């Protein structure tokens, strides 16, 4: 999952196909994040101008959704499910262990739909069931 380096021209090229989409702001930000790994500060004004909406609208969307990030991604994206079904099989302990080891590469998540085979952890897009620290160590970059 390598990401491109931020550039306005590259960003504009990604926005172009969305020009006629109804309600484009969220999908525009999602498209930028998919390409660059995050939403660059300059993207707010860019998206606002491109779709003729206010910067406040774009900023509002950017800050509302947990998925959208404004800083470049770290080496690993480790999302541990800490919702109830995974709590029931020890995800809180695993969360502590992972945060100890991988620090801010670990983010809390709320359900991957793998609630009968928890704890569920998504590492760099790969879902791991019955997760243990060892299973995660094996797929870490």
């Amino acid at each position: 999952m390598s990401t491109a380096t931020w550039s306005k021209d590259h960003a504009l090229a990604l926005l172009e196909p969305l020009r006629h989409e109804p309600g484009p702001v969220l999908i525009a930000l999602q498209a930028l994040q998919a390409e660059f790994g995050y939403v660059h500060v300059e993207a707010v004004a860019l998206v606002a101008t491109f779709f003729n909406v206010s910067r406040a609208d774009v900023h509002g969307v950017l800050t509302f959704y947990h998925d959208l990030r404004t800083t470049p991604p770290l080496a690993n994206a480790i999302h541990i499910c800490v919702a109830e079904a995974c709590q029931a099989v020890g995800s809180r302990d695993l969360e502590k262990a992972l945060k100890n080891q991988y620090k801010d590469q670990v983010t809390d998540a709320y359900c991957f739909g793998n609630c009968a085979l928890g704890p569920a952890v998504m590492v760099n897009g790969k879902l791991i069931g019955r997760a243990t620290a060892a299973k995660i160590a094996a797929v870490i970059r």
Partner: protein
Amino acid sequence: MSTIKIFIPRDSAAVSVGADDVALEIARRAVAENLSVEIIRNGTRGALWLEPLVEVQVGADRIGYGPVQVADVADLFKAKFLEGGAHQLCINKVDELPWLAEQDRITFKRVGIIDPLSIVDYESNGGLVGLRRALAISEKEIIAEVTESGLRGRGGAGFPAGIKWKTVSEASSETKYICCNADEGDSGTFADRILMEGDPFTLIEGMTIAGIAVGAKEGIIYIRSEYPAAIAQLEAAIAIAQEFKLLGPNILGSGRTFNVKIRIGAGSYVCGEETAMLESIEGKRGVVRSKPPLPAISGLFGKPTVINNVLTLSSVPAVLADGAASYKSRGVGRSLGTQIFQIAGNVKRGGIVETGFGITLEKLVMDYGGGTFSGKPVKAVQIGGPLGAYFAVKNFGISMDYESLIAAGGMLGHGGLVIFDENVDLAVQAKFAMEFCAIESCGKCTPCRLGSTRGAETIQLIIDGHNPESNKKLLLDLCEVMTDGSLCAMGGLTPMPVKSAMINFPEDFDSRVEVAK
């Protein structure tokens, strides 16, 4: 020797415990041993504790082996599993496994059986019968059939699907929409995901029938970003459906138009609330709208919109194919048809159980679930997601239907059951319910936005033994304010897990100075 068919699920849950690696290893060995095999990546049968479940077609039967790990594969070849040979992982004929055979699979009848992206498989297993019938009868008759079937919304609120459709059909507008709610944010639920991965054409067929019934030409599936495999599967299924003219300007040669596209969520639980979902599809912050107007009158981009859950829409093809009478012959009272229960958490045999409403909680937890994964006694079961109630073993007699659960102080929600063993502390769970509300609140109402944070603090005080009695009273007051003063069920139902925990597990809220860390 003729080619041997092997089924290995590509379902996310199966893959999360090694199904891809097992498939690869089986393929590798088959090549090495010069055996001709065809590996079909089916959906999961829903018996998730058996995943990865490998099935081999032997004559007319499918013989199952599970859970299979890569390390077992050599041994399976030695045991001649490709001929259905005996092995300690062998569960014999999968269709005869009581856990599956005793279910009543209607909506899920093809899931795990067919190749999810094969139109041929789909049609030869009963697919498209409902759509063909819908195209042959009038819009009014379709809606009457759905209403008559008793089908209610499976997303949580349980509103009759036919009545919602009728409102949209009567609204006069050139443009109308069918929005499928595939946000499935509740912990302990995964039926939408499994259906979308394992039998996506059923959802597409259901949405198409809805579109024809109400006069909508465009369908949108709002699916959460946490489900990348389901998103990919739907994208593939939509492309195939267009190619085979199940979608597009001339559905099955009828001259009718319907199309489906996908919008992906961005990690917000409240966007599962239908009006927040509409805002999100419109590209805005997922803030809940006030009602009226109902989305059925003024929904997506202000147009009349049917909003239904994945399971509601996916039950429609069967209702049309087999008729309302058949569907409503299942269930109890005003809870008709089948419910797709999801057994999750600390459970030995978790997965999908589709059966008529009215099964007892005990049967789901103990007979299907087999008790806890840890082997310790069951202490609590949360039913209906993070906004649902916590029940105790003494509540095991509850009949699992909409009305009985409400009468017991709970709700069915999306049909998920999360099982906890004796290690769970219900005061901690109650605190989590408040914290979750604080994280996911859309921010529109004060009781939800701020009350949730105050609630979590108050529960911590109770846990720490600070004036527990007066703080319990304060907490109950706060719950009342949240229930009465919230616009939607996020703030309005967060008190449900909290209060049910206090009522059903009072001992966990007793002064805990001695155990406080």
